[in-house]
């Protein structure tokens, strides 16, 4: 094998969603450049070794690993603490779906107690509430007058800032959300079908039997 494929192989390993096997690499190359491209699993193995040598020589911070099911890039272990720090920061930063749900309930129902939140969500919400408190997106404001006098949760100024709102009344109204979220897919569908029908009728009327026939109008042209 000419090593013209070294970069192609690298790009395939780099971008594959999961470790990629030598045979998949070969298939991708042959699919694009032709079945007659002669390239073996050994060639792939050798290329990977060559790439790893280049990485070492060039002091790259990553390498190609051989995992059970194929090849994949991975950062070298000596950078594990930086990589680990980054991933922990990211996982903490992302408001999880559950936290967002809790936040939404509080935002729209405030002031609200924990039992009320849990009634809506159907699950214990201690952890989520604490996460939101920690991120200063909600805070405690007094107590409800109901049995047990549970704490009342409200959103904070930080919450407003985070979502670009001046005041809590600026939250999108449920009605507004419905308006945007309504399922208009079928309207769109209907419109397209309608357009096709019109065209057919016109074409029949003008008696022009062009080769498009009953095909539709819409840009299938390029297919």
């Amino acid at each position, binding site marked *: 094998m000419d090593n013209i494929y070294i970069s192609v192989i690298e790009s395939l390993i780099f971008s594959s969603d999961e470790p990629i096997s030598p045979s998949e690499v070969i298939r991708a190359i042959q699919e694009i450049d032709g079945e007659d491209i002669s390239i073996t699993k050994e060639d792939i193995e050798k290329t990977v070794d060559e790439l790893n040598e280049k990485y070492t020589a060039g002091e790259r911070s990553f390498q190609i690993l051989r995992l059970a099911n194929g090849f994949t890039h991975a950062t*070298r272990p000596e950078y594990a603490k930086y990589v680990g720090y980054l991933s922990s920061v990211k996982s903490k930063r992302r408001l999880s779906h559950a936290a967002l749900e809790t936040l939404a309930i509080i935002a729209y129902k405030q002031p609200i107690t924990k039992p009320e939140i849990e009634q809506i969500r159907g699950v214990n919400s201690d952890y989520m509430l604490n996460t939101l408190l920690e991120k200063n997106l909600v805070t405690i404001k007094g107590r409800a007058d109901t049995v047990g006098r549970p704490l009342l949760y409200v959103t904070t100024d930080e919450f407003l800032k985070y979502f670009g709102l001046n005041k809590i009344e600026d939250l999108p109204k449920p009605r507004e959300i419905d308006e945007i979220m309504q399922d208009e897919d079928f309207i769109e569908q209907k419109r397209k079908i309608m357009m096709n*029908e019109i065209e057919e009728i016109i074409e029949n009327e003008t008696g022009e039997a062009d080769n498009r026939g009953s095909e539709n109008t819409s840009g299938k042209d390029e297919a």
Partner: protein
Amino acid sequence: MYKIKLQNFEGPLDLLLFFIKRDELDIYDIPISYITEEFMKYIELMEKLDLEVAGDFILMAATLMQIKAKMLLPKERDEKGEEIDPRADLIAALLEYKRYKEMAEELSISESNQRKLSFRGYYSADNKEAPEDLNLLLKNVTLYDLMKAFKAALAERPREAVHQIQRLNVTIEEQIEFIINSLDKSNEISFIQLVIEMREKIRIIVTFVALLELVKMGRIGLKESGSFNDFIIYGLEENG
């Protein structure tokens, strides 16, 4: 009827631009009768076919006919006494729309280019050294240490005789908040510092339980302090 190939027009402005382009009309001098006629044909066709004509198209039809009518009347004049072209607003709308339609093409090109790129696909093989996690922290501090510190805290608090039995309104939740707030100011606080001002035993106990709760939730960590009878509480937030 002469043939028009119907397209999926994005709207009435799109349809008008289509006529202008197809018939090589001057956008600044739109032959309004002609274009109105074309537009109406399109709408009539839809109606003839019992199709629902979108409100946007009907509105445009009305606008076009209004302009057409105005074209026949003596021209209105603005403050400067210049003639107002009844088509001016329509032309402005068409140009503005066209501008963004062009930008959409630019974006489409960027989209094509970007689709030629692939990002890294698989990250799971990266070596990640977990930042100090809960288990690691608890290696240094055992529950026994915790109890010991707690007992010491009780012993060291300022003694004041409490003569009256009173119901205290203190909950774990409140103390969780108290601890978090204390940690907000300084990311670390010793247990003694935390409870030193507390007068009632029950409050310290509730605070202690709140601490356990927070440890369980992984929100705080505990570590040894210089003193045997104390320990340090610190937040596990991302930047403290």
